[in-house]
């Protein structure tokens, strides 16, 4: 294992954000995300996307959010591409 192998390639990760101006703190995203992406901010009384690295693009949170406050941006590249990555074709 090399240290560089432990660093995430940002092109392969999703980006998840909660717009604090829109969020109304209903906690639906926290309840519905099976991968624990969201965390409650007890001071601001809002949800935050604390662990976006866990997101699997199921879109359940966006579906449930009544305020349209959530944005899930798909990764640009597959997490691991079995055919192209070993040949260095995605580098």
């Amino acid at each position: 294992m090399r240290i560089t192998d432990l660093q995430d390639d940002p092109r392969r990760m999703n980006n998840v954000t909660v717009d604090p101006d829109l969020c109304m703190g209903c906690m639906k995203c926290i309840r519905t995300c099976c991968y624990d992406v969201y965390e409650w901010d007890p001071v601001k009384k809002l949800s935050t996307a604390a662990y976006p690295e866990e997101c699997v693009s199921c879109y359940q949170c966006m579906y449930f959010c009544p305020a349209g406050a959530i944005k899930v941006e798909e990764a640009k590249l597959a997490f691991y591409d079995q055919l192209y990555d070993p040949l260095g074709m995605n580098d």
Partner: protein
Amino acid sequence: MENNRITYTTDVLVVGGGLAGAVLAQKLHSLKPDVKITILEKGYFGYTGQTTKAGHGMCIMSPEAGDEIYAMCKEQVEHNPYGTYLNDQDYLLEYQKEQYTYIQELERMGGKFSHNPDGTLHHHHEFEGKKISAVQIDVDFMTPFCKNVMAGGAQILERTYFTDLLTKDGKVVGAVGFNLDTTEFIVIRAKEVVLAMNEFNPSCRDMFVAPATGYAAAYEAGAQLRNVEHLTEWDLCYRNTGNFLYGVHWVVSNSKGENIFRKYNCQSLEELEVTLIRGMAKELEMGNGPLVADFTQLPKANEGADGFFHGIEMKQRLELDEFIRGFQNIDLSNPKPEVSVSYRVSIRSLRIDVEGKTTVPHLWGIGQMTTAGSAHGSWVHGDGLGVAAKTGLMTARAIAKRIDESELGEIDEAQVEKFRRRIYEAAEYKGEFRPDHVIRYISRLIKKPEYSFNKTDATMTELIEELQDVRSKYKDLIHLPKVNGHYLAKAIELRTMIDMLEMMFMVFKTRTESRGCFSRLDYPERDDKHWLKWVLVDNKSEDGKPHIFTERIPIERYPFKPEGWQEIAMP
């Protein structure tokens, strides 16, 4: 790290509040209203779990098939690519005995299914001439079961992460875990413990990803795992995002316009065979990339077509793909999008008998945790909901029969303390990375061609050494950015992932053949003569390493046998 300890006492502890756990709890309560039930759930009961993701419906034996259970089971034994002939046929026959009537039982319990205007159950009829059919479930399928379970007075411990099973004299007497929000330490004493936590799937960034915690705990408590090598799956996906593209792998073409499915003589319209994957890899190596899904080769209608996805109108198929592409900003005007493959490997291997009993007294298993372990081998791909519901019902009946004689066991406080320390230990780690960094590293590592579609004894030995190396180093490599429930759980998931993967590849090495979706480069053929056997794992070896052994399948007394079984099966 000091933590508050809370101790609970119950009759039946159910770990995992997905469909299997909820159905079991509701059924058990209806049979035995005085039995105290506790459900331990790391998420929120009714919201989390794979059940909330399930797509096309619940498998049933087609009502058109009449009473032909034998014909149905024969299909499942002979054509199922997951462990062909590795079924426990006693289990399979018992499992299918109820045909589609279990749907009616679920309906009486509150489950909602789609109906025809005349009130009859709507189902998809037979698939591609097979006797399997499916019924569509409600989007909020979990809700009525959860409500009924709560109305029945079950205790629900949400946000509680189960970590270990408590044992005394080889019997299970309870469990421990911690609260994900408060990090409080939880100890539960129980007469019977049911594991319903779903599979172990190390594919990060995939909807099926699931930690190994449950299997690691069951293994440590002495339970046997069976058919660990059952589940390898490939799907076709868009190259840039890795999102799946179902049912069109037979139109994959190279840059010269050659159809790869035909070029490599592939057969299955349902599954991606290893010959197709190897063919696609070879085309890229030869410089014939990129690979595309050539939608212009799809027929406009499905007349006379065979295969699961051919049963769907091609027009709908194309509309669906257009919808998906639109969502992912993939150029819709391009009829030949670039494709690749996505690989998944998982363990559903807790060994159970037909009642749901594991090999450890007072420990039971239900749901997707057991699909390969029960060796029912039926519909392994696509019957997740059916297995969850049916095993929930079957095991509820079995526990109801026994619970009156069952007693609370003594807790071994030294064992509780050992587990407590192991949970909070990661708070002291001082490395540079987070646990999830190492998890993703391993998740990528095992997908490499030499460890997946081109694996051999030598490459697997190399991988096991690499996993052992990671095990020896990871505590120095990681730290928890915040000492909270999320990262404590990640550290546990990393530890158990390494252990279970090592075990998985040891089992892969043991089976020196290829069978259905399980394939090796060094043993490319199915070998019934030597491998009509189950590979089993438990912790009963002297040296502390996983104990791997085989058990002959009693094929002579089973109704479905491969050709030439007389010569090969007798001891």
